[in-house]
């Protein structure tokens, strides 16, 4: 949790006052109770009293930004330490048909010769029927 430097608070801000004693918003309620108040300077005791009450401490906490970079940092570190397993690992250890990209290697190269061009046939040079002109040549009457 982060405090805004512009925070307006009536009196000294309790966490600021108790920071030298190691008090942070993440400290447990029990930890707060265990701080020896009699060892603190008088102005800090009131701040401690404020934070020892769950209700009053919550009010203080509610003016802090609800972000916790330290906790997020720890989370990121954990994520970095547990990268998980690349999917290829299971692939290499499982019985499964080879993936397509490996077929050339494992089944042999399937390399068929290119299809040939079609030869020409003199008898099919023209699609115009032989008798077409006889039908079409007509003289005027």
């Amino acid at each position: 949790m982060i405090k805004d430097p512009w925070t307006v608070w009536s009196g000294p801000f309790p966490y600021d006052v108790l920071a030298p004693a190691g008090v942070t918003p993440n400290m447990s309620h029990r930890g707060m109770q265990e701080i020896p108040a009699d060892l603190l300077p008088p102005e800090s005791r009131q701040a401690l009293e404020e934070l020892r009450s769950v209700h009053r401490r919550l009010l203080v906490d509610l003016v802090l930004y609800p972000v916790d970079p330290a906790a997020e940092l720890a989370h990121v570190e954990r994520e970095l330490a547990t990268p998980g397993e690349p999917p290829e690992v299971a692939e290499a250890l499982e019985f499964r048909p080879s993936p397509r990209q490996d077929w050339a290697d494992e089944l042999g190269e399937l390399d068929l010769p290119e299809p040939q061009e079609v030869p020409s046939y003199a008898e099919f040079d023209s699609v115009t029927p032989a008798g077409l002109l006889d039908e079409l040549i007509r003289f005027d009457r």
Partner: protein
Amino acid sequence: MWSAHALRRAAKAVAVGARSLGDGDLDAAGRAYAGALATVRKRIGRHPAAAGLAAAAHLGLGRVRLAHGDFFAADQEFLAVQQLRPHDLAGFHWAGCAAAHRADFPRADWYFTAALARDPLSSRTLAQRGLVRVRLGQPDAALADLESARQLHNHELIVLAALHLRRRDWARAEAVLIAVPPDRRPPAMLADALARQEKHEPALAAYDQAIAAGDRSAAVLFHHGLVAYRLGRYEQSVRSWTELCQRHPMGRSYQGLVVRAEYAAACQLVDAGEYEAALPRLAAGLTAQPPGAMDAALGLLRRYAAAEAADTGDHAGRARARALVADADDPWARDFLILLDLLDGRPHAAEHAWVRINAQRPADARTLYALGLCSAARGDSRAALTTFAVLANDESPVVARRSRRALAALRIRHGEWARAAAAMAPLPAGDRWRAALLPESAYRAGDPDRYAAQLGPWLAAVRAAAGEPTPAVDVLSGSDGPPRLRRELALLVRRAALADVVEARWDTAAELLSVNGIGPAPPERPELLPGAVRVLGGSRSDGIRLLADASRQYPLDRRLTHTLALARLHTVSAAEPRLDGPDWARCVATWAAMLHDDGFWAGVLSDAAGRYGVDVPDDTIEPLRIGLRDLLADRLPTSGPRPAALLFQRELAAAEVLAGYGGLPLTDDDVLVCGPLRLAELGRHQEFGRFAVRTVARLAEEMAELIGADQPEMRQEVRLLVAMRDQFVRCFSELGFAHCLLVADQPAAALLELADLRCPNCRAGAPPAAADVPRPLTCPPGCAGFEQENPAYAGLVDGREQLAHDAVVLTVDALGVLSRRDQPEQAIPALETALQVLTGENRDRVASWLASLLTDRGVRAANANMTTENTNTATDDDLRRAVKLDPHLIRARGSLCVVLRNGLVPLLEQGRVSDALRVLREVTDLLTEGLRLAPGNQELTRLLDKVTVEYDQLSEALHRAGRESMSTNSGGSGSA
């Protein structure tokens, strides 16, 4: 005379003949022409028109003979025409036609040439000579004639196209054929012209058309198959050429074409990876090969087809795969069949099969590899590692590669990245698996110097981990890079950003946090931390904007709302001087959205319990809510026409009401709780309007049921429901301010709020409204601000009218409260406002009330004036207004008259007798009117008597003074 008559008859007969010939009635035409000829024959040379008529009759008779097929007789007639009209084309043209019909083409050509000598542009003659020249075997000359003809019949155009095709002039042939109407055009000829120009697509369509029209000649079938072949549509080639083989007498000699097309189809399917479909095609396509020549290719394709069938992942696919390689006798097929067993759910059978083979052939590497996988599957990593380590150097490249992969995979599974890198390093550089995993393994091996050459794109991760995030940022800004690398880089950059946040290095933190894709995992909003960091880093408005935008997009994210509320509060409350304004409005809107939101408090308690390590009970909420509310309220500006404190009151009241109705449902399982300002900021006011309509309708139904029950004891409940509805609607509108003031026991202030219900823009933009404009003022139709400021009325057709109506009801309520107060000074302006809002009986009652209060104030002021001897016209104004508001109010009228009469003494002391008389006249009128309204009123009567006497005395004195003045006119002016 006689001659002219005969000529007319002959001309008529020629016309009849031409008409009959056109109609096809050859006999009638013949008779008419013969008659005409008989009439004019003797007169040739004797009359100038006779020769022309005779020529026409001969020509007609010739055409009749020609039509009858009597070509020689026709020729005689045409000869006569030539003699009669030697310069005319017709005799020669038709003689050419007669010769052509007789197949005497040289003679026909002579006649047509003679005709063209007489008229070189005759289109018909050119066309006829062109056809004759085709017959004469002179294609070039024929082409020239046909092209010269301005107009050709369709059959002549097709002849011309055929001549072009014969000359292999494909483009001209296409152009000529396009000119023939589609239904008369031979499609095969057009297809040929197109195909020869390599316009294969339209050519194929034209051949399809030809075949559909029944042209299944060998040439058409061949060329159809050929064009399809060139387009890669081998199925069509196979179909056409198969038909060619069946229909052609020499069919078998074309079988090679079908085989060729089948082979090409197989190659095409193989290229597309459709091996199962390719298999029968290849079998058909290899029939021309010597037996056994292509067995290897077929066997290989069968493997591919089996692998493809197994790749479908279902039982049916594996059954097909098994059938495809069942007859094969090679190690690959054997392993493949065992694998299929395993995939079909028989792992033990598969392992037993491999154990059996291993017993027979202990050195068989494929079997050992399979057994290694069995060990790994059983969790016996040690045995598996040993097996794969040995096989990694097997002489079979396939076994060696797979074993290395398995070995490296086991190392990775155990987190031994350096050993994994070492295991996969010898794999070929192009190995897909190596390319995918070696760079990551090299990175995770933790020895970047040693593996520098293998790191590839993971070098960015090495540098980011070493504190140089720039290359990582570059990768993340693009879209390249494998997902695992992007994840690692995002985590590393986020770690660097978080470290900056912890150390309060806001600027660098903000920069890193803006990198695409490094946000936290859902449901955490990626905008939360960057927004807060920008606020903390001093770019407060940017940070708040970022948070507000995100909050608008995710209105139910409570941490986002809380962060935004804090950023706004800290920013505005630290500013000096503390000025009211829109920032405060947004601030209170955000806070009110949290204070009555159960979802927010649930998160707060759960978070606190986690941090404090103790249970935080629900009853902590109420004191906290009050504490936060007071904390905020203490800082709010309270001055101004509508201060933030009032905004906060209404926003809180609205949020509480909405919470009471369960909140505005935004998703299936979550609701929004807030006030109208926040609704407007989130752009949810129209959604709320629909919700409000449903809610009000539900309340109305409940009321109807209660009223229908007609039980007196239910009246209280009905009143309660009405109050609930009013509270709900008022809080989510401009009426909310008056409502809150009324609840806070400030009815006068509430009334003042009700005269102007316009949105801030309309208030700011418009000039002050004239006094006679009806109140309450509302936004004009179509004003977008109306629905934002009044979400309870959003979407209603008559929303503005309903708002005005509800304002009147609230005015009456406020007046009711006000009537129980003794605060005349405060009530007067409020009642003035109410007077503008109300009409009818309500208005009359308020007017009387106001008149009474004004009279009280006027009298009190008059008494004070008398003691201080001050004159104050405000006193008169109050009383005059009171008389105007309520003419029946005797007390006001009497007091006004007394006050006016009291003012006479100073006037007379100043010698202003005329003014004093005017005052007395006014008082007299007031009293006379009062007595008309209240006949016999003693107080008024008494006063009128006194005033009448005083008026008479003063008037008499004035007249007397006037007369004396006139009599002593020369003695100078006197004074009264």
